[in-house]
């Protein structure tokens, strides 16, 4: 059976493609962006997750654990993922859901059933979006889900880094109604430093897809100190305007709300805790750069 580890299914998604959508978040990503807003989606395996804000501190989980994988400290429950066998006893024991698995293994059929649930809401433009993590990192599963959507007459779109082999990208483009792809940084060295990978593959995928006339939306995440400088935006503008097809570019503002996830993971948050969205005037100024290059920016 083809499965994937799905870490969230967001119904009534209204910012992940056209219309009303159901977004499927699949675990595992080849990139490791320093600002990742879904850090629980980076590794493909299911792990234990701890939501500090809803924990009542009863320690039932510690009592239930037979592997000494949990302990209590000044930040709440600390998880030793190496010791954890994912037996799930602590999950059953937790009365609030603060201790839970960060994802669920789902088959293609189960995933399509979830997508079916909101069919009355999709209308002609809404549908399903595969996101992540990186959906192209689970190609067999993702492609089957996309084909399933198509067979059911449900519009299917993807959110992707496009960091994948060209033949994989082409397979996706054949089964997808729209590809929403990021260009985070135009300079290869800076891209490598910030995401752990080189962007040559990504840019060539974009160029090829544009050449084929694919329905493509480019998103540029504006990350303070990483991607929000004029030089980067100008470089991206030049690149997009050099493509064979006119492509819409969306500037996505920084999302500070993922901070608590880093706390749950006890991972380093790259930003000042007080870092907030980039001011609207600044975003408009950056948008202006795109417009100067003849692009339509949203």
């Amino acid at each position: 059976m083809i499965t994937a580890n799905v870490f969230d299914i967001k119904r009534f998604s209204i910012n992940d493609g056209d219309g009303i959508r159901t977004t499927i978040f699949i675990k595992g990503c080849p990139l490791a962006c320093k600002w990742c807003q879904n850090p629980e989606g980076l590794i493909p395996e299911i792990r234990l997750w701890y939501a500090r804000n809803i924990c009542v501190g009863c320690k039932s989980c510690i009592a239930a654990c037979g592997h000494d994988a949990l302990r209590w400290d000044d930040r709440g429950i600390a998880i030793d993922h190496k010791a954890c066998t994912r037996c799930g006893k602590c999950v059953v024991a937790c009365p609030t859901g603060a201790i839970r698995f960060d994802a669920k293994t789902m088959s293609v059929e189960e995933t399509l059933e979830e997508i079916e649930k909101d069919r009355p809401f999709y209308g002609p433009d809404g549908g399903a979006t595969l996101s992540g993590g990186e959906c192209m990192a689970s190609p067999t599963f993702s492609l089957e889900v996309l084909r399933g959507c198509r067979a059911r007459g449900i519009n299917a779109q993807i959110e992707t880094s496009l960091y994948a082999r060209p033949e994989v990208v082409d397979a996706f483009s054949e089964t997808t109604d729209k590809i929403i792809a990021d260009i985070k940084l135009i300079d290869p060295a800076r891209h490598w430093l910030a995401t752990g990978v080189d962007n040559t593959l990504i840019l060539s995928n974009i160029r090829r897809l544009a050449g084929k006339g694919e329905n493509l939306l480019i998103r540029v995440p504006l990350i303070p100190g990483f991607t929000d400088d004029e030089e980067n935006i100008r470089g991206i503008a030049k690149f997009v305007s050099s493509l064979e097809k006119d492509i819409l570019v969306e500037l996505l503002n920084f999302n500070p709300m993922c901070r608590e996830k880093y706390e749950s993971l006890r991972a380093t948050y790259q930003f000042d805790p007080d870092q907030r969205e980039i001011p609207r005037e600044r975003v408009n100024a950056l948008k202006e750069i795109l417009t100067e290059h003849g692009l339509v920016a949203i």
Partner: protein
Amino acid sequence: MKSKLDQLPLSLRVQKLKEVMFAEERFASIEQAKIVTDVYRAHGELPRNILRALALKEALERIEIRITEGELIVGNRTTGVRAGVIFPESGLSWVDREIESLPTRPQDPFRIREEDVRSFKEEIFPFWQGKTLEDILDDRIGDEMRAIGKVAKINQTDHAQGHICPNTERWLKYGPAGLIAEAKAEREQHTDNTVFYDGLILSLEGACLFMRRYAALAREMADNSVRREELLEIALVCDALSERAPESFREAVQASWFLYVILQMESNASSFSPGRMDQYLLPYYEKDIASGTLTHESALELIECLFLKFNQIVYLRSSGSAKYFAGFPIGFNVAIGGQDEDGKTAENELTFLFLRAQDHLLLPQPNLSARVFAGSSDHFLTRCSEVVGKGSGMPQFFNDEAVIPALKSKGISDEDARNYAIVGCVELTTMGNNLGWSDAAMFNLVKALELALNDGVCTLTGKQMGAHTGTLEDFETYGDVIKSLNTQIDFFFERMIRCCEVVEQAHAELLPSPFLSCVIDNCMKIGIDVTAGGAHYNLSGIQAIQCANVADSLAALKTLVYDENLVDRKELHAALVNNFENAELLRLRMLNKAPKYGNDIEWVDAIAFDWARDFAERLSRYTNVRGGPYQMGLYTVSAHVPMGQNVGATPDGRFAKEPLADGGMSPVYGRDAKGPTAVLKSVSRVKSEYGSNGTLLNMKFLPSLFHTELGVAKFVRLLRAFIELKIIHVQFNVVNREDLLAAQKQPELYKSLTIRVAGYTAYFIELAHDLQREIIARTEFSEL
């Protein structure tokens, strides 16, 4: 694309009138009570319908009247606006107990003049003791009602029954003068029943007098006024309406308002519903627009003047009743849009002018209801969505695709069903021919469940209230739980129906309503008062409360106790009796670790539906005293709070006395973790044909959704799905700052607030606190 009608400006006049109205203090008034008492004192021997007609006529003749500076539409039942009218015939005992505390009570206070308190205590109250509806019912079935009251609350025991949609179209077609002629002609035909017609005629004569008094006052004021022309115009309109049917749009609007004022003076009841105003006012509007005597601007101004009027009559309730129905909702329910008799869209220019008026004023009245169906235009749904986004909670939405079949299943004709309107908050009715008695009683299924798990003993008081059915400890299987709950429901059901019958009979006996009978089809023809069954349709509605809590409680029992054996029944029973004292972890488990209604989980939603359907089927075995069927409603308005106070701890992890789910169809606060689409799917499983008395679903959205055209378009798509899913009703509230502040204090109630960012999802309550605070700070609508 916005049309010109959607952008008409708010006139200075309307703006001023609104400011002045809300600046005025609200008083309780005994003026009409005095007049009515005088009439009863002098003519107590007359038949009750004549006595009532005389009392009304006398009030219409004597009550002090006022025309406010700037008003175009005139008329009220008191000189002050939003006054609480004390009305003796229906009940005064509560007034006697509460009159001094009216200014200081927490919900819906009114000021009262000292001399009025004295006059009430010395002249009015002593005369009425033992004579009011309230006293007589207390005498007849008081003990019985108290014995079942925590489970089956009987309504309409201390006020007249409103919740009716008069035939305004007929009133406009004939006017009071024309109706007098008709009543006289019918009297000739019914020589054995002349007394009935005498009552109608007296009340209609009073109506004519009332209109002429306004004409006289306007003329008198005109002499020294800067707005002499306007006042003379008012005088002309009022005089004309006392003699003939309205001809212009303005006359029709004024005539409609007079009708509702006089109906309120006759009955002082909650909700005389105007119904489909955009339909029956249309011929007047079109004629005047065509002839050039009316502009879009002046039509809108008249509608807005009427909207202000809808806010000037409020309904004084006892402090207990005010808890159930907070904010003195008076239920001027105006339905717009929908379909015509051929199933084509009935939208017209007036539809959009009514929306624009709501857009401008954002007041609690009218209760504006948008009828929607598969054939509704995108423009209509878009305009409705934009107005919803302003945060007044209106228009609320009624779905023709669900309502029409539901009404037809209760014996309503196709033509009448397609022409339905709404009374009160959400109760369904046909137009002008139906006494729906839609709020006969409320049956608290959650209390019945509490009793079912504790051998019929109330866990709050320790009193034996219901049948002996054993306790949770005794129930070996989930089936035993179900059996016990059914026994408890049966125990209260018969008793409730018998009380409802006595109440309805008492209304017919004590509160016949001759004026209302003139504008409800069939009464005049067959010579029977509306309260005695004269209307073409005679229904009675009883509310089943609250399916969400029943589903959550039973699902928790089934999952954690019977299927997974994670919770011991003896331990849980003890915890329920002790309100989860020293059992917090058990409570959290019941709350968090069992599936809940509202999350698109078929088997849990089916529990809600099963109990609703069973309840509706039980009701269908009975016929009311007017010969019509009973039907079920699924709504509480604000009664989920006091009704929750009557219920002990429940297996869904709810503490004793906590509110029940709000609305009627809504999931319990904060338990809908999968967003609005899942809620709508769950609600759609409680099939609409069983909610023919009306259902209520509340949903909340963040205001940002309505800030962009794209967001509005997505909201419209949600409405289209609501239509397709055949859900009867939904009302959308825009989350305001207060909601979000509450979310910070009690995050467990707001689990379902999700923050929507591209490629990202998280629940509000799992965000860091400083970020929660910032979202709050950014959320607008603080003033609403």
